[in-house]
């Protein structure tokens, strides 16, 4: 399954151009289980890219881990979820030098979270390569209580923190790496549109 094509939206909605090898540059790669596929594709386009790469797999199956291992990256780390991965990402970013390429692959939640950490560490967004693979679930922030709900696949959805029914917007906060959810029935309490699956 290649890089997901999202339907055109507002200009601020992130788009993901896909991963392209930066050759001999040092690399930091972060991917989830579906995104690991994109790393394999990257390695088959340029096997040497793995010689300089630290790979961090988030919530990946053992089998996926094994597949990446056979690509012989310079370093390979695993974490069960984004929260557990965050300190490691901070460490990799803080030890990295200018010229390091950042490759992110997988869900929008993962890419949004890691790119927010990276831009917070001073890396310009343009220097981050991203490729969307797998679920189109979103990481949503409730604009009312500021709580973040992971893996949102329907619109509207219920905020896992304050319980409001939220409309899934294409507005994205790059600083936080989340889409914004807004109360759908603020004016007409209880009048909630039909729930539909989020589409790409």
């Amino acid at each position, binding site marked *: 399954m290649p890089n997901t094509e999202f339907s055109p939206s507002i200009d601020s909605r992130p788009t993901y151009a896909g991963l392209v090898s*930066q050759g001999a*540059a040092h690399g930091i790669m972060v991917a989830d289980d579906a995104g690991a596929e994109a790393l394999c594709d990257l390695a088959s386009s340029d096997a040497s890219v793995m010689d300089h790469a630290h790979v961090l797999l988030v919530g990946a199956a053992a089998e996926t881990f094994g597949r990446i291992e056979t690509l012989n990256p310079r370093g390979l780390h695993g974490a069960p979820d984004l929260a557990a991965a965050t300190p490691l990402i901070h460490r990799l*970013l*803080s030890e*990295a*030098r*200018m*010229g*390091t*390429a950042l490759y992110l692959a997988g869900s929008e939640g993962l890419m949004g979270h890691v790119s927010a950490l990276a*831009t*917070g*560490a*001073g*890396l*310009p967004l*343009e*220097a981050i390569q991203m490729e969307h693979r797998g679920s189109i679930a979103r990481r949503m922030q409730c604009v009312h209580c500021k709580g973040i709900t992971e893996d949102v696949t329907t619109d509207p959805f219920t905020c896992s923190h304050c319980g409001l029914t939220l409309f899934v917007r294409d507005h994205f906060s790059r600083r936080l790496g989340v889409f914004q959810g807004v109360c759908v029935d603020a004016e007409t309490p209880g009048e909630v549109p039909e729930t539909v699956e989020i589409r790409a």
Partner: protein
Amino acid sequence: MRKLALKVTEIETLSPLVKRFRFEDPKGGALPVFSGGAHITVEMPEGETIRRNSYSLISDPYDGSGYEIAVRREDRGRGGSRFMHTQVREGDEITVSSPANLFQLDLRARKHVLLAGGIGITPFLSQLRQLGMEQKPYELHYAARSREEAAGLKLLPEAAHIHIHISEEGARMDLGAILDGQPLGTHVYTCGPDGLIKAVADQASRLGWPRTAVHSEAFTAPPPGEPFEVVVKSSGKTVTVKADQSLLEALEAAKVEIDYSCRGGACGRCQTHVTACDGRILHNDHWLSEAERAEQKTIMPCMSRFKGARLELDL
């Protein structure tokens, strides 16, 4: 643009070619504060012409008690810097614009590397204070030909992360050594001659720095040249640009409305559409691309001049 009528309160010779000027509100009022890297435009009336040059502010951005600039005397210029050096006295009144900033620090950066060549030290003097105040990590490298010419030496604090490179003493600035191995998230800022700016951009791209982490400011005062004429399309009026006048200054003197900010070919604000051009535009700006220059459909009146039979501007 808002103008401020100020008083010259201090003039100090920093080097044979560079003087420092301090301006204050005549009634002692507070001036608008600014951010590191900002500049003001100074009006220099001489006879019937008013020249306007922009200079980086070198004083503390958080200090509204006065503005300070450092002016290098360019004897082959239009006469603006010579006017500052020879005509302006302490106690004089002087009109300046309120500060504008085209060379801001990217405060998301994890570290800032500042590279100055010669008089290009000026914007960094205010940025240093901002970085110090915000406690951001930085290093500054200041390159000059000789100690005598290095006007910035008197204005720089002594600090471990401030490095002076005097080429006459064999201590040239080694860009490779400076840029290699900087931590991820570093931004580099260069101000100085075009050659230095280009060398930094080349070195940074060789090391894989993202282009958006590389900043520069090359602003020079407009050069003099041969006089020429320009036609203003809306009124059909012909305006003569004198040898020691910029096109922008000539248009202003003819009361043609035109927008500007840096007056040094760096901000893009004065960009003007050319409706007829029989001749060659002498592009002196840092704004237009090579392709745009070749087209001769746009001109930056703050810097550029013309040689030929007819130039008509969409004004």
